[in-house]
């Protein structure tokens, strides 16, 4: 008996969900599109929230920013849960290799005492700033409108916990897993006069009601300045003090900020170019928080870095970024 094998091609009945089809046409959609667009519920709510009866549960009016379509704020990295987790897992694997190399070679023992003290006074307390960033992004995630921006804010918030954990890990490497350096760094954060203005700023940011303002203050203004000062300028200073190896441990944050900047710049560019009202609003928020942040960082930078120009170098970087985004001319 002869056996004949035939193949049959089954045409899918439809390419994607109806809502995606309405937006992008009848063609196969990416997972990101399917896992993002129109995901947040809009209709058929029974009640307004008891704790905030002036708003719907998902409400566009929780910020002064106005967008015709909040789903325009898409993530150029196209992160939905799956891709986000895969990307970060790869990223973390590389970081873990660096950390285990650092520990295997006992590089912590070779750090000069001055470098250790500097790390405990200035780098490790930064984990409290990262924790604030986590809270601020989570706040944005809970009150923002549209899954495009809220999911990206959630991922950013989780990343900030990751950054904080890596900073804690640096502390544990320094003190041989006793946790003493973390306790000492907490005291620096709570008591050291250089940190107090920054600590006050962190607390103030968490009291702002408009979620988009918090987002601009934290992710644009504070992060641009802090990441330049702590991961580039402090990095150079540590190298000059004989602590070049610490760069192995902060590589994760340097790569991370590059990745998240891509998203942040694209989102803010879209918002600023949507309308002049939006741009003016953004410029106002930036001006307000930029002054506050520079003021808060001043005592810290004076104590931490030798270069008296350090803060203006970071500020120039922020200025360039604002121009590139189109918030200021």
């Amino acid at each position, binding site marked *: 008996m002869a056996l004949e094998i035939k193949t049959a091609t089954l045409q899918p009945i439809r390419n994607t969900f109806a809502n995606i089809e309405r937006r992008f046409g009848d063609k196969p959609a990416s997972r990101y599109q399917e896992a993002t667009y129109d995901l947040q519920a809009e209709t058929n709510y029974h009640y307004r929230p008891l704790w905030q009866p002036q708003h719907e549960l998902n409400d566009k009016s929780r910020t002064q920013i106005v967008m015709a379509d909040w789903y325009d704020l898409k993530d150029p990295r196209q992160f939905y849960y799956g*891709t986000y987790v895969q990307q970060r897992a790869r990223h973390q694997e590389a970081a873990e290799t660096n950390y285990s190399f650092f520990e295997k070679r006992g590089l912590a023992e070779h750090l000069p005492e001055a470098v250790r003290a500097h790390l405990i006074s200035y780098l490790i307390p930064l984990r409290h700033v990262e924790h604030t960033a986590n809270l601020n992004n989570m706040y944005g995630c809970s009150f923002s409108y549209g899954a495009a921006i809220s999911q990206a804010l959630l991922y950013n918030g989780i990343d900030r916990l990751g950054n904080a954990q890596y900073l804690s890990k640096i502390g544990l490497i320094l003190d041989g897993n006793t946790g003493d350096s973390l306790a000492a760094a907490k005291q620096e954060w709570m008591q050291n006069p250089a940190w107090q203005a920054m600590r006050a700023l962190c607390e103030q940011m968490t009291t702002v009601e408009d979620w988009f303002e918090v987002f601009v203050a934290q992710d644009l203004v504070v992060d641009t300045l802090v990441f330049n000062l702590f991961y580039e300028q402090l990095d150079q200073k540590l190298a000059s003090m004989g602590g070049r190896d610490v760069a192995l441990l902060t590589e994760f944050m340097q790569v991370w900020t590059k990745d998240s900047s891509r998203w942040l710049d694209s989102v803010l560019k879209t918002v600023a170019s949507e309308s002049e009202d939006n741009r003016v609003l953004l410029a106002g928020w930036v001006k307000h928080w930029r002054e506050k942040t520079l003021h808060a960082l001043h005592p810290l930078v004076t104590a931490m870095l030798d270069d008296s120009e350090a803060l203006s170098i970071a500020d120039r970087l922020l200025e360039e970024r604002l121009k590139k985004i189109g918030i200021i001319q």
Partner: protein
Amino acid sequence: MSKVYLALQDNDDSRYIVDAIVDDNPEASVIRQPAMIRIESESENGLVVRRTTVEEKIGRDWDVQELHLSLITIGGNVDEDEDQFSLSWNV
């Protein structure tokens, strides 16, 4: 002129690569098969995959050699460097 073609696995990376190819090669035809996307072109220029276009679509840095992770088959003479991967027949 006979046609050049390449076939990619239908996965999350390929979708963006296909979008980029369609942008750079408007005359190419895309044939979606089960688990595979085949792209053919009869144009004289052949087919080109450009790094910059793919990076724009995929939203991250992309190495042209990553193409091979999803590649099933190709037809044509290959010219590949750091910025592009192109197929054409040298006649």
